[in-house]
């Protein structure tokens, strides 16, 4: 019985993942970022916006682990709270994407008469470079965290929708979908039971990379000054301010940069691992 239980697709995937070293490394890196983000109020008790002009430009040391910036604010607090914002924005964008992208992609792939309309709108949105479109949307909406989330969702949802659509187009022609139809299943039942569960693998992989893109684009927006307004502690904001003091106080720009790099690297390794395990074409080559 135990032998049989193990054959569930979910369990097989889990077992393979646990043997994938880079996936584990990705999980550890992203896990650290996630932990810091969640525990921010506990591990960074100093207000990230508290000014201390007498303590400005302190290098990393005993008093301030990561040093202080040009206003004497604790860089540790700012980077930790920045992690919280990055994870929040990334997570929200991924969640919106998962829901909207799946809905739009499934509708376009399954109901072919909707395909043309939905996909042309998609194409139009995908024609713009991501950052440019995000800047345009935040320019219209305004520079708050919520508006950044909406902007990034608008930028990345078309990509997700396209991936879901292509899986759905393949799956709707599968014999088991035809068989389900012959057994009297309706559209909703077919989508929910037969098509979407089988379309999940590429979507999960895409969403893990999307998290990284969202974090990176958010940092870009703040760095360019069109994201969340200063003094909100986002990594992009901290780096933008630190840029002027790069020669005298290099820690201000390098520490949030390293944090950003760890997050993106972790997510990419995690996504690569998921892809190795979930993509059946790659599995054959191994």
């Amino acid at each position, binding site marked *: *019985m135990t032998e*049989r*239980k193990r*054959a*569930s*697709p979910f369990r097989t995937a889990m077992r393979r993942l646990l043997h994938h070293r880079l996936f584990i490394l990705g999980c550890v890196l992203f896990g650290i970022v996630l932990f810091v983000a969640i525990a921010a109020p506990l591990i960074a008790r100093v207000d990230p916006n508290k000014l201390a002009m007498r303590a400005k430009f302190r290098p990393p040391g005993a008093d301030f682990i990561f040093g202080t910036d040009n206003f004497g604010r604790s860089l540790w607090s700012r980077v930790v709270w920045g992690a919280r914002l990055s994870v929040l924005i990334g997570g929200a964008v991924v969640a919106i994407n998962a829901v909207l992208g799946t809905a739009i992609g499934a509708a376009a792939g399954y109901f072919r008469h909707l395909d043309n309309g939905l996909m042309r709108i998609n194409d139009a949105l995908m024609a713009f470079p991501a950052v440019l479109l995000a800047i345009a949307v935040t320019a219209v909406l305004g520079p708050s965290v919520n508006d950044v989330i909406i902007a990034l969702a608008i930028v990345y949802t078309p990509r997700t929708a396209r991936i879901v659509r292509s899986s759905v187009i393949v799956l709707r022609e*599968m*014999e*088991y979908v*035809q*068989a*389900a*139809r*012959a*057994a*009297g*299943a*309706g559209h909703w*039942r077919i989508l929910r*039971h*037969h098509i979407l*569960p*089988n379309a999940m693998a590429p979507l999960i992989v895409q969403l893990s990379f999307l998290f990284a893109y969202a974090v990176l684009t958010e940092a870009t927006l703040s760095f360019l000054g069109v994201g969340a307004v200063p003094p909100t502690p986002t990594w992009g904001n901290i780096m933008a301010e630190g840029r002027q003091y790069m020669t005298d106080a290099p820690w201000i720009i390098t520490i949030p940069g390293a944090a950003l790099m760890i997050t993106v690297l972790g997510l990419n390794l995690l996504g690569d691992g998921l892809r190795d395990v979930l993509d059946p074409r790659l599995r054959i080559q191994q």
Partner: protein
Amino acid sequence: MSLLTVSDLTTSFQTGGGEVTAVENVSFSLEKGEILGIVGESGSGKSVTALAIMGLLPRPPARIRGGSIQFEGQDLLKLSDRSMQRLRGPGIAMVFQEPMTSLNPVFTVGEQIMETIRAHENLSQKDSFGRAVEMLEKVGIPSASSRMTDYPHQLSGGQRQRVMLAMALVCRPRLLIADEPTTALDVTIQAQILELLMDLRDEFGMAIMMITHNMGVIAETADRVLVMYAGRVVEQAPISRLFDHPLHPYTRGLLSCVPTLDQDQERLIAIPGSLPEPSRRPPGCRFSSRCLSAVPACSEAIPALETFEPGHAAACIRIRDIA
């Protein structure tokens, strides 16, 4: 009244090269508990006929140009999508050719059968589980209740086809359409599945429409046979008549392709040429381009089905000359 009466069914497909007729003026009927075999080469219109009855032809590109399909007195072509959906399963069910891909890989066998039950009946989890186990036992799956938690890839081809049958039969359909149900299986399993189909027919009293290109399968199971060629019915006969006195040259050709044990043959006999593409069908009788008995008159008009014996009809103008 017959269970199923198809009359003058004509369907076509919109393709890049214009509209192509797949099935033309097909008529037949099926009684309760009867097994009707439909034979023909690939592309002769067998599966299109089946899908038209199920209401599963993708429209567009397919289009039903004429005719009617009466099932228990109602015209299926006039039913709404919703009532058609309710009919699939308890009314008409279908098993497909490929047991390897006809089951959803992410759900267990049990979940898939139970889902079919719950699509049509308001049963509790426990009751539908019981029904599914009972059905798996009926189709000959050993230790059915522990097999319920198996995923499709853990089953062999024959077992999967049994599961497919269980899924099709779990709502007790009055008509089962079996589209080449044994083609993908090896010979011993084929025989078992056919046996099982006949047993289930006797138990449930359902009619079966058996689509195949295998004369052996037809000989073993069917009560009556419909021979199709290039989208038209060319001969219709009770099973014994068809094998003893085939009328149409195409049927004769098909039967002489089957090697026999008592003749010492160097080579297999084959019908010359191949099935003409729908857009390049010859004028008149569609078989005329490959027929050994063809005369110029054959190309002038499409021959109508003509009854020669009670229940035995063929569409050929030369039958009296060549018989």
